């Protein structure tokens, strides 16, 4: 299952938009946080988990999804949300804690819900999986089309929730795909120090489902493998576990000094940044020109700037609105 030129450009554009978005958030996040770093200060308070480097995991999978398909992402959700088509203005306003945000400022960056495109995420490691399995069950029971995708980090593969959900999805043959974004680090603990298997995709065999290992942070490979898994799910052939060896170019969260990284790792990761690599592929394969690239970047930047402006210009909710929306 190879992507068309159009699909490749769609993936590239989403990766660029996502990266610009994270770069903009990174900059704004530091407003009010210098010289002394205080997480509570500035226009974007709280923890911030940037997805720089992990864009291939988002676009290669979401390229196969439509808005009726379900995605449940993680505490590091921006790249996936963008690829799934979440309303970027309202998502940004949510990250700023504004009234116009997706939940009116009640959720924040780890709790992005956009029911218009069936996107949600959770800050609890591994909890995306049961929810996605249940949404898949819902589609199966209702005879409605649609697959569910759960994202998780490689650290989540050591949670009980991971094993329970894989087993349940397999025993009920649910139309769900589990996507591990393996960035090799669970905050500061290296995967090799925490995980007994070399490849978490090997664990799929314990649940009689295909386990797919994608060794490179390559959107085209992700597209191909995810396409097969999603097609399997759509055809009623059951779940798949996909493991993508990706890169976390930034820290676990902003403010992370990253002293745990071996010398040279960040420089190496920057060298294998998937975005320049994808651009190179496009120029080699499709004679993608610098002019086309500039136009695409300009458009991505405009999208991001418009979202940031929308968020900045939006009002804060009245404090007592905190009391609403506990129940419907």
């Amino acid at each position, binding site marked *: 299952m190879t992507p068309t030129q159009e699909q490749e450009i769609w993936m590239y554009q989403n990766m660029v938009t996502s990266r610009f978005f994270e770069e903009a958030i990174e900059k704004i996040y530091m407003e009010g946080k210098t010289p002394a770093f205080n997480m509570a200060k500035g226009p974007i308070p709280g923890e911030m988990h940037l997805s720089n480097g992990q864009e291939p995991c988002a676009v290669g999978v979401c390229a196969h999804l439509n808005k009726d398909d379900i995605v449940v992402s993680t505490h590091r959700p921006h790249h996936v949300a963008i690829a799934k088509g979440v309303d970027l203005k309202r998502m940004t306003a949510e990250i700023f804690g504004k009234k116009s945000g997706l939940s009116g400022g009640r959720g924040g960056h780890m709790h992005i819900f956009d029911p218009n495109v069936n996107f949600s995420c959770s800050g609890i490691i591994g909890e995306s999986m*049961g929810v996605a399995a249940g949404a898949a069950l819902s589609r199966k029971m209702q005879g409605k089309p649609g697959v569910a995708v759960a994202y998780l980090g490689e650290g989540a593969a050591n949670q009980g929730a991971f094993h329970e959900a894989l087993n349940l999805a397999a025993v009920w043959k649910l139309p769900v795909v589990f996507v591990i974004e393996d960035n090799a680090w669970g905050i500061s603990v290296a995967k090799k120090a925490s995980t007994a298997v070399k490849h978490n995709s090997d664990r799929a065999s314990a649940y009689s489902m295909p386990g797919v290992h994608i060794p490179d942070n390559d959107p085209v490979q992700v597209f191909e493998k995810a396409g097969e898994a999603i097609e399997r799910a759509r055809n009623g052939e059951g779940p798949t576990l996909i493991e993508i060896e990706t890169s976390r170019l930034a820290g676990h969260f902003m403010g992370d000094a990253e002293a745990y990284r071996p010398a040279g790792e960040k420089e190496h990761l920057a060298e294998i940044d998937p975005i320049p690599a994808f651009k190179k592929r496009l120029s080699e394969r499709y004679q993608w020109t610098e002019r086309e690239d500039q136009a695409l970047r300009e458009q991505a930047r405009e999208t991001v700037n418009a979202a940031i402006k929308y968020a900045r210009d939006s009002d804060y909710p009245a404090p007592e609105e905190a009391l609403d929306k506990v129940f419907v």
Partner: protein
Amino acid sequence: MTQVKEKERKLTIARAMAESIAMEMREDETVFVMGEDIGELGGVFGNTRGLYTEFGAERIKDTPISETAFIGAAVGAASDGMKPVVELMFVDFFGVCFDAIYNMMAKNTYFSGGEVNVPMVLMTSTGGGYSDGGQHSQCLHATFAHLPGMKVVAPSNAYDAKGLMTAAIRDPNPVIFMFHKSLQGMGWLGTEKEAIVHVPEGTYEVPLGKATITREGTDVTIVGITSGVHHGLKAAKELEQQGVSAEVVDLRSLVPLDRETILESVKKTGRLIVVDEDYHSYGMTAEIIASVAEVGVPMKAPPQRVAYPDIPIPFTPVMEQWALPSAEKIVNAFSKIKETEQ
């Protein structure tokens, strides 16, 4: 009189729950049941008996012993247009799956600004008294009631069980349905006969968040939850012999809490005893007494609570029975009230 007798249809709480679920399933094809041993077995506590035969394995789904996965799955299904009724066999097992319950089920509506509904029912058994040890006998009412985002109900009889279950299934929010094992009508658990009452055949709702006055009185208010209501009624009978008129309030819903009914009763009686088989400290008893205290209802004496001591539930009957709330303890609590008044 004979005609009334013929119409009377006494059911156990277990039967009433199953009947409500079945009736809702017939009307609404998005309602389905998931849990451990809820299929052919009909539920360890009988509350899904007959459903598997009528609705089949697709809608009455036995699950693996994976509470995190299947409660999480219920959240996902509920958010996608289904109405799952799931069972956590013993409330004590919440330890393995509380993320799915309070971090997902209870919060997703809020995190979505009210855009994502999670219309699901989590039914779970509570209570001890039959020497099942400290991991199969707790009530944990307050543990669930404390956390925002989920409604919590706990019936004391079959009529309320059916009506609360119907209301819970129809509610667009997550509802925890706590049923006490000793009231369930399963002979092997020891059965409180007063929980087996007439249940109308038709469909009806008992509104969530509404307490009921089970027995009217003027001298003391006894507020009870599940088994506590029955202890309260027995105590009221004994107190009657002492010339004391006790009013018994059955809370029925822990969230939302019907403070109004409690306050009205206490305004009338000026005395309050709260009975809860959950642990003594930081529990529903404290919440109810605080709710009365903070509005400044004139009291004739300080309120009393009859609850479980702050200890893990012991196995041996001599210890367990000693620790449980009882009618006798309520009568004693009333004596204490009278002493403070003198």
